[in-house]
């Protein structure tokens, strides 16, 4: 591998560029017109404009991205996360052009990209999924299913999403009315009355397992707790989780089993919900590198992007599972250009004053520079601040210290830093009482 095309932007483009440089691989950064002055573009060996600001015409523009790879002579493409990262058709086209795709195989993506198929595969691999039904034909069927699953259950619209049409049911008495109402809501909202039932998991932790495979074997790199979310958007992640040892062990083994079942290649993440009793349920797999991968890097000392490069270059994983060691505790906060005081609405602008923290155990992954204008066309992630220390209480103290040092100012700019400071000061958070509705419950959010 001599030259990699980075088909992404922002901090992840910079992250990939850094590893490529360390590996001695030349970099081609493709970018929209809005990102011509971005840090990855400025640091790249080559930069190629692939379209106007709109993502559909630039970062999702497959013909222009492939052409850029061809004219620049790139022999590999790293898609980062988002955009084309989980697009099996793109991965296939890249391979058809004799270019290495730094990520899973198109087959991996097809098998795991669809939630329903992924659930099926999980069952095949003997990995627990949230118990549930297909579309319900009748109220009777619903009653039988709920009986089997056990109350409380949640009704969800088949065509739904974003919480609409959902309805938690605690007893059989409530069920009939709830089904009828849910169907009505689903019809109104999505034009399709079909609903299904799932077990309702109260106060679940969102725990995900990082894996890496080379097509022959799969290693887990321990897990991350990403329960601090707002409207399903992760805000703060940490590793390891606070799960009891035996639960952790089962979770990690399940993840490896599932990934091995499909001959998984490259880095991937298996997401689970864990209930208060320590039961875990597979939800879905992300077939890409993730925003929060640095916390895993901090506790394992491994460079996940480097491993992706090596696997894509055809090198089998030299590491054995027992060589993968975890040490200490890591926390990442996402610094978004959003105003936590105003319901997290985007608040972007030019970066006038920028001062990142330093010192022991502090890592900054950000594409910002003083004077950079944050373009309004893409996500609001300004950067990630990651800390490591010997244990969780110390890591929390270190993160508080690091945030105290951080200055990120500009006209109109607001960030999630004040929100993170509050989370870190929260007594429930500090003693590890986190679950996916923590923000809504404890932070007065929604």
């Amino acid at each position, binding site marked *: 591998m001599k030259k990699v095309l980075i088909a992404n932007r922002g901090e992840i483009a910079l992250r990939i560029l850094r590893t490529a440089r360390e590996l001695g691989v030349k970099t081609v950064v493709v970018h929209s*017109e809005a990102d*011509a*002055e971005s*840090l990855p*573009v*400025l*640091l*790249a*060996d*080559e*930069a*190629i*404009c*692939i*379209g*106007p600001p709109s993502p559909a015409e*630039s970062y999702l523009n497959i*013909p*222009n*991205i*492939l*052409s*850029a790879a*061809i*004219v*620049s002579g790139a022999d590999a493409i790293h898609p980062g996360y988002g955009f084309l990262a989980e697009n099996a058709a793109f991965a296939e086209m890249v391979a058809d*052009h004799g270019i290495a795709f730094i990520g899973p195989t198109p087959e991996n993506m097809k098998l795991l990209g669809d939630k329903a198929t992924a659930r099926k595969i999980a069952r095949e691999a003997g990995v627990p999924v949230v118990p549930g039904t297909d579309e319900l034909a009748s109220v009777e069927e619903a009653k039988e299913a709920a009986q089997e699953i056990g109350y409380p259950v949640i009704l969800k619209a088949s065509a739904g999403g974003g919480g609409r049409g959902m309805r938690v049911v605690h007893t059989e008495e409530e069920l009939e009315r709830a089904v009828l109402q849910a169907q009505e809501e689903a019809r109104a909202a999505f034009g399709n009355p079909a609903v299904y039932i799932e077990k309702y998991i109260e106060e679940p932790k969102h725990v995900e397992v990082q894996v890496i495979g080379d097509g022959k074997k799969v290693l887990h790199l321990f897990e991350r707790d990403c329960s601090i979310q707002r409207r399903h958007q992760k805000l703060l992640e940490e590793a390891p989780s606070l799960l009891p040892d035996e639960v952790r062990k089962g979770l990690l083994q399940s993840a490896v089993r599932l990934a091995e079942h499909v001959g998984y290649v490259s880095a991937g993440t298996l997401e689970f919900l864990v209930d208060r009793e320590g039961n875990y349920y597979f939800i879905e797999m992300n077939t890409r590198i993730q925003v929060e991968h640095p916390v895993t890097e901090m506790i394992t000392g491994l460079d996940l992007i480097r491993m992706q490069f090596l696997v894509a270059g055809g090198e089998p994983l030299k590491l054995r599972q027992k060589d993968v060691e975890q040490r200490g505790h890591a926390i990442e906060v996402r610094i978004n250009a959003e105003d936590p005081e105003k319901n997290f609405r985007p608040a972007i602008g*030019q970066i*006038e*004053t920028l001062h990142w923290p330093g010192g022991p155990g502090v890592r900054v992954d950000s594409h910002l*520079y*003083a*004077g*950079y204008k944050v373009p309004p066309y893409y996500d609001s992630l300004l950067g990630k601040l990651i800390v490591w220390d010997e244990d969780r209480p110390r890591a929390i103290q270190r993160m508080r210290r690091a945030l105290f040092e951080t200055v990120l100012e*500009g*006209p109109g700019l607001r960030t999630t830093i004040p929100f993170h400071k509050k989370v870190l000061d929260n007594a429930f958070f500090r003693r590890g009482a986190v679950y996916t509705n923590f923000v809504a419950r404890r932070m007065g959010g929604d």
Partner: protein
Amino acid sequence: MKIREIREILRAMEATGASELTLETPDYKIQIKRGGTETPVRVVEAVANPAPAAAPPPPPAPAEAAPPEPEAKAEQAPASEHEDDCPNCVVVKAPIVGTFYRRPAPDAEPFVKEGDRVEKGQVLCIIEAMKLFNEIESEVSGIVRKILVEDGAPVEYGQPLFLIEPT
């Protein structure tokens, strides 16, 4: 900036009879006018980014070892740069990424040469992208004043290819 420094500047201006001074540093911008009754208002723009002169368009191969100097880079303005050569010209830009070809076949004549007259809709060049040959047509009728890209060179999205003076 300290008051003492401002006072010193003012004194120095007085001493030397200077009538106007503008000073810009990363931290502040100061503008002073002395004397006269006329006081033209000059509004100063945002100070955080005193963007200097325009840099040439970066792609496709900026210097490898160049450190990032974000603050030193101004907006890319490839179009206006080329427009300078021919203020009345229309700039034909690459609509896709690919390889620029001036001829329909290696041994054929170029579609157009500098000085040629072209009609609206006439093919100016081909951009090859993923084995597809995309003909790029002129949007105007006029004279080809300048061809900005070498035959066979890679072009990026929006890269100026031709300057055509409409007639």
